[in-house]
């Protein structure tokens, strides 16, 4: 009875009800409206993301010669990629060494961004009490994200180069006699730049988790006699875990597929998973590039599945 009244007053409030449609025949059905609203975005993802992914998988099984694609089944993209992997045992083959390098960069960047991201988010969420300050400081952390990555990479050159600020400073103070060569175009500068660029992706989700923590839980822990450290380990970290996992997924997938930062900051000398794909494309070996993309995708997917076991991503957004 009450439902009928409700429908009279406000048709459409009860989803999917036939009478609502019958009452106002000119109204479009709700599911049709949903399709109109969500359809365009779905089409963009279909045309420029899902179908391209399918093509990557298909082309990875095609054959190729020096200058063109040959649409015939072949495992050459994969066999070329793993060339020498069995023959060279126990030494690692090229692709093996490349992935070890990529995972090492991944781990370093992940550990450092997690540490920085956690404490920056902690400061913003628990120590900054005024909403205005919280907004302002969050914005301060976000603005660089809206500016160019390449510029933020180049920006390290005057600081880290042979005659850069760091080297000339160190030489002047007498700490070193010759400029340090490993500051720029090295693993060090790659990790530094990746941390510089992508800590943002750690700060945002962790901050989001922390801001939702009920402050009375922390007071309760304090009242029950927990030390600051115990509160951190037993209350805050478990509750911030979803943010930590989402941030980690972002940072790890970005570093796994990166080829620009590693290229520019590594002086084009460091091999990484993303760079192989770029190299193969530049050599017009598309099936080999696609095969490498499939391998990278599989490994990235594996990492994400393992991490999303820990937390339900959809629930957190």
């Amino acid at each position, binding site marked *: 009875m009450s439902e009928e009244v409700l429908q009279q007053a406000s048709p459409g409030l009860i989803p999917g009800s036939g009478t609502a449609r019958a009452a106002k025949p000119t109204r479009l059905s709700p599911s049709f*409206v949903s399709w109109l609203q969500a359809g365009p975005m779905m089409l963009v993802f279909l045309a420029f993301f899902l179908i391209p992914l399918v093509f990557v998988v298909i*082309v990875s099984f095609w054959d190729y010669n020096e200058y063109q694609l040959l649409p015939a089944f072949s495992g050459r993209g994969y066999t070329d990629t793993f060339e020498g992997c069995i023959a060279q045992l126990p030494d690692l083959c090229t692709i093996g060494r490349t992935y070890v390098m990529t995972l090492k960069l991944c781990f370093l960047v992940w550990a450092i961004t997690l540490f920085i991201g956690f404490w920056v988010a902690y400061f913003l969420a628990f120590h900054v009490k005024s909403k205005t300050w919280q907004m302002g400081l969050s914005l301060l952390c976000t603005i660089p994200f*809206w500016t160019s990555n390449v510029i933020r990479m180049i920006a390290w050159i005057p600081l880290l180069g042979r005659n850069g600020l760091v080297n000339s400073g160190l030489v002047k103070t007498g700490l070193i006699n010759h400029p340090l060569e490993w500051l720029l175009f090295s693993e060090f500068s790659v990790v530094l730049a990746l941390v510089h660029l992508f800590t943002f992706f750690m700060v945002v989700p962790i901050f989001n988790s922390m801001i939702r923590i009920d402050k009375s839980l922390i007071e309760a822990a304090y009242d029950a006699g927990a030390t600051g450290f115990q509160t951190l380990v037993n209350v805050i970290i478990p509750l911030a875990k979803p943010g930590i996992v989402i941030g980690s997924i972002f940072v790890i997938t970005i570093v796994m597929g990166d080829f620009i930062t590693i290229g*520019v900051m590594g002086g084009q000398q460091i091999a990484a998973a993303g760079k192989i794909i770029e190299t193969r494309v530049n050599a017009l070996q598309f099936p080999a590039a696609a095969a490498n993309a499939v391998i990278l995708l599989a490994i990235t997917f594996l990492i994400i599945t393992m991490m999303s076991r820990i937390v339900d991503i959809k629930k957190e957004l």
Partner: protein
Amino acid sequence: MKEGRPRSFYVLAIFFAAYVLFLYGPMIAIYVLSFQGPQGGLTFPMNGVSTFWIAKLFQGTGIVDLGAAFRRSLLLGVIVMIVTVVLSVAAGMAFRRKFRAQSILFYSAIASLIVPSIITSLGISLEFRIIDDLIKAHWNENFETSMGLLTSGLGAHLTWTLPFGLLIMFAIFNRFDPRLEEAARDLGATPWQTFRHVVLPIILPSVIGIGLFGFTLSWDELARSSQAIGAVNTLPLDLQGLTTTVTNPDIYALGTVISAVSFTVITLALGTIHMLNKRQAAKGSDAGKGLV
């Protein structure tokens, strides 16, 4: 509240300040260095102060055809911004009730965000190559390519900006009070009137935020453009090409000019958002203010 700050506050405040310095310090260094004197080099100290390198950029005698790349990037950025705003707001509205394929769209957006850009970019370039081959084989032998700034390039950028737009819409509707719409409906508003006069004005500040993300992410996009942009380059691609052969401060000058556009857009957007919020606070509701 007035217990005094714990010691951890000061430790973390210093940590935060160091992080901010780490974020901005290097950027500021190159903005300063782009005003090197004509004899100046790539590093400090400054060898005089001038606008020599920036002027050189605009004369077109410098390293790239700045004007053409600039216009292309600007055009693409504006189109990406508009499409991102419209599609995100529409899809965000759709997510407020259940519909089939909801989770497919959601997971597509998340996957598009985290699948490495180089893979998406490669996929798009393969897709367009195959389309080109089909056209050449069946319809027109002299066909060149369907790849380009506003086909494959636009698509590539959208796969990066749309997920951000959708996630912002989720955040908006998480704290949106649906009773406002019910009230509008009860007063006889059509769905379109409800959207136009009730929902849109409330969410407008955040919608401008989506536009800000749309433009800046496209303006600086690199990884997805790399394989999918076609024959011409965008500004960031030109800039990246220069990093292997840096000898003059003109690369810093180019960086400064690109950043100037970013900062102008950021300031405009944040200013508008601030103004709208203030207006909403002042005129949005007269609840509790008495009847006279």
